[in-house]
Structures are given as structure tokens and as C-alpha cells.
């Protein structure tokens, strides 16, 4: 080891604006993230019709910054599981979820994704939360577009009020 000393930087001068951004970082990042949701529609069943309805002109989820579907999970941060998920399909859903980058959220769209619905039988996963964590559940068979919009807004409210870690410990 040389005798070289590592200079310790003085604390940055107090700038009110900088202070403001430090304390409001979560709010800022949350605000940015909640209006740039890129959904990946994992559409398996009839709820897909309702998904098309809610994402197209009449109801238009684009108003909420949550419209542009990315058809690869690697570019998406909102996984919308739309429809019934069978045990045979569960590995695919798990793989899709694992491919998504952090931060990511999951919406269980419709009663089948939420709890299996009335498909209480040998074939159907009784709720996707048995496999992957779910942030927001949308009831209905199929859900009304208003219900989906409400779910998006609730998810956005949650993202907006969340603590957003930019660099994680295992980065």
C-alpha cells in the first residue's frame, strides 16, 4: 500500500432544489413510473375480448399511460394475466414473469386469473397468485371496462406512493 490518501469529499453544498429532489425522489420516480406502464397482455381466454375493448378507442387505457402493449415480457413492466391459466400453461406464465425486468407488477384480470373462477377442477390453477405474486385483482366474468380502469388507477396510486429503490443491494 502506498501512502496515498483517498480524499474525502466535502458534503455538497446545500442547494434547496437538490434537497427537494432527494426527499421527493420516490414521488418523482413513482410519478414517472405510474404513467409509463407498459403492459404485457398474457391473454388466454374470453377475458381477452374485454381487454381489447378496454384498451381500444371507447375506453382507451392510453389516457392512463398504460396502453401500449409490449409483446415481449422483457420490455414490459405490467403483466396482465387475462383469462384462465391451466396447470399445463402455468410453466409458461412463470417463465414470462421471470423474464420481466424489475420493477414489475402483475394484474389478475378477471375471476379465473384471480381464483380459478368456476373452473374448480383438475385442469385449472386456482388463482395465479399460487404461482406468481399479484398486485391488483380485477373481479368479474368478464370485468367491466370501468373495473379494469379502476384497477389501473389503483395500481397507479400504489406505484405513486411506493418506495422506489433505484439500485438494489444485489445490483
Amino acid at each position: 500500500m502506498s501512502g496515498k490518501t483517498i480524499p474525502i469529499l466535502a458534503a455538497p453544498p446545500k442547494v434547496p432544489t437538490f434537497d427537494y429532489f432527494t426527499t421527493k425522489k420516490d414521488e418523482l420516480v413513482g410519478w414517472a413510473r405510474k404513467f409509463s406502464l407498459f403492459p404485457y397482455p398474457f391473454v388466454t381466454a374470453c377475458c381477452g375480448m374485454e381487454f381489447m375493448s378496454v384498451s381500444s378507442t371507447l375506453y382507451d387505457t392510453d389516457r392512463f399511460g398504460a396502453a401500449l402493449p409490449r409483446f415481449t415480457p422483457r420490455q414490459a413492466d405490467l403483466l396482465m394475466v387475462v383469462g384462465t391459466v391451466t396447470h399445463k400453461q402455468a410453466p409458461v406464465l412463470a417463465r414470462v414473469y421471470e423474464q420481466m425486468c424489475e420493477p414489475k407488477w402483475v394484474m389478475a384480470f378477471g375471476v379465473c386469473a384471480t381464483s380459478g373462477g368456476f373452473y374448480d377442477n383438475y385442469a385449472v390453477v386456482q388463482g395465479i397468485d399460487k404461482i406468481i405474486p399479484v398486485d391488483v385483482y380485477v373481479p368479474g366474468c368478464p370485468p367491466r371496462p370501468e373495473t379494469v380502469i379502476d384497477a389501473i388507477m389503483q395500481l397507479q396510486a400504489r406505484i405513486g406512493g411506493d418506495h422506489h429503490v433505484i439500485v438494489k443491494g444485489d445490483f
Partner: protein
Amino acid sequence: MDANLLERIRHRLMPTATELPVAHGIPVLALEPGQWLASARMLRDEFAFDMLLDVTAVDWPGQPLRFEVVAHLYSTRDLVRVRLKARVSEGAPVIASLLPLYPGAAFLERECHDMFGVVFDGNADLRPILLYEGFVGHPLRKDYPKRREQPLVRYRNT
């Protein structure tokens, strides 16, 4: 259904079947498993039943011949249907495959094998088609437990 055609089929079947009941507008041929392929061939070649609509089974638990294999044929010439039925036992649920007559039987019989465990002699490819590898049992049998799950992905600890 055309009474004339029904009468001709009945006449043709005279040696083996004494009656030809009509259920829900479809004549029903109750066959021995040994007659399965020959009867289907006769219906296809002589009566122009050129389309296989479905192959499925019915589970009658407790009866000596537990499974009733059911096939529906359709004639695109006469626009009529006919139903074939044959009973097989639980110990040896084997029946001839209709694959030599109808290539479409391959998938239908795979599904029936999935759901009921009926073996179709002559159909070499009875891999699971709707179920997945590793699934134990046959879910449409009446004794399959209603709530049994066979997940492929390990459940989360919630």
C-alpha cells in the same frame, strides 16, 4: 332422418343387430367391441358416412363393462349422423382404433385416452394431448377426485 336410409341400415345390420333405436334424432348402433372397426367400415363404404365427428366415452362406475366408447359419424352426402357405442371393461379397456378409416381419429382417440384411459388398438400415438406428461390418472373418470391438483409449477409460500 330419412326413414328409407334408416331402414336400409337396419336391413344391412340384420344378422348382428335386431333393432336400431333412434335417440335424439340419431340412430344408435350398440356394438360388441369386436365389431367396432368392421361396422364403421361398413357405414363408411356402403352408406357414405365419410366424416368422423367425435370419439369419446362414458364412465358407468360399478357396472361390469364400465366404459362405453361412443363415436359419431356423419354423412356429408345424406347430411345425417349415426352413433356407435361399444362397452369395454375396466380391466381391459381396449377397442380397435378407427385410424385406418378416418385419419382424424388420431387426435380424438388421444383425447379419449387422456380423459378415460381407453386404449385404442392400432393408434400408436396415445401421448397426452390435452393433459401433460406426468399427469397421473384419468380426470373424466367418475372416481377421479374432484379437487385433486397436479401442478407443474411449485406453489409459492403464501
